[in-house]
């Protein structure tokens, strides 16, 4: 069953026809040729498909395109507004990737995560979950990024890259 929808991706509006079964990830990659978000597991478990969906990080493989009509979507490519985002620059400087396949998802997830921390969101490792602000130490970064897997195990350099950009 087909549906016509509009998606705003990295600031540009796209009108497209999708199958109701089409995931947001496949709409981006296969229908719009926007291949920045990657398909890793297609089951919401690896995080390679992470995008910002109406401002919040989400796994786009479990979102149906037709259910997110008019949504505002930001990919890792869209984060590079005036040159690279500071987090993207930090990933390069800290050698925080090897094959690079999980990298766009890691970066979008980290940007979303930093926003959540800035809003005072606790995590399960936060010592006092009722405190108003949050300090992102390594344990917090690892916990908050646990939804993004890296088969090359570049985690060891991702953590300091994210820590460098975290306030």
């Amino acid at each position, binding site marked *: 069953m087909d549906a016509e929808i509009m998606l705003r991706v990295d600031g540009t509006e796209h009108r497209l026809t999708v199958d109701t079964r089409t995931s947001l990830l*496949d709409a981006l990659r*296969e229908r719009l040729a926007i*291949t920045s978000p990657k398909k890793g597991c297609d089951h919401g478990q690896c995080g390679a498909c992470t995008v910002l969906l109406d401002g919040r990080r989400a796994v786009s493989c479990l979102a149906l395109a037709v259910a997110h009509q008019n949504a505002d979507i930001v990919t*890792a490519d869209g984060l590079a507004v005036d040159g690279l985002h500071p987090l*993207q620059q930090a*990933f*390069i400087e800290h050698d925080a990737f090897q094959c690079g396949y999980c*990298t*766009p998802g890691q970066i979008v997830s980290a940007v979303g995560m930093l926003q959540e921390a800035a809003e005072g969101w606790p995590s399960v490792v936060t010592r006092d979950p009722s405190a108003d602000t949050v300090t992102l130490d390594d344990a917090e970064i690892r916990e908050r990024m646990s939804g993004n897997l890296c088969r090359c195990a570049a985690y060891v350099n991702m953590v300091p890259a994210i820590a460098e950009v975290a306030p």
Partner: protein
Amino acid sequence: MSRTMTNRVVGRPLDRVDGPEKVRGTARYAYEQPVDAPAYLFALQATIASGRITGIVASAAIAEPGVLAVLIHENAPKLAWADDPEIAVLYSDALGFRGQIVGGVIAETSEIARDAASLVRFDDEPRAFDVGLRAHHEDLHKPVNTAFFGAGGGELLNGEICCVGTAAAIANAVHHATGVRIRDLPIALDKLL
């Protein structure tokens, strides 16, 4: 390589030339090379661990609108050279492991390919299998060549050097703990004292 070139590159923390594209997700991986009017394949996989395929019914899948073909071992094109069993996919009815790719449905969209795949029916004849590791297994034999990477003649035809420097890692740990750098084996107590 001249001395000056070596000093400019070796040991320096260089930014990767593909870095900006990788962090933006715009570096293209194999699947992402642009193609006009692509077709999409959804793999068919074996559900038993060992045995052989005895029958395939693909008619319902082929009849689905948008399905272009159903590839199975009976109709798959053959490679010019298929001596390597790892790349000789779809060459026989033999099933070697659960999840083995035994075919694919090719369609105009990925959604159609996936859905049509659920319509392909397989019959198979399971075979008993033995995957229990035990020290006195009746089938144990010593491989002839274990040190060469694929050099012929031995019972291990595919060799891959193990790049994990276990000894080096241990030496690093010893150095970290004691300050003593050991550069030859064995790593023994008398070298530390």
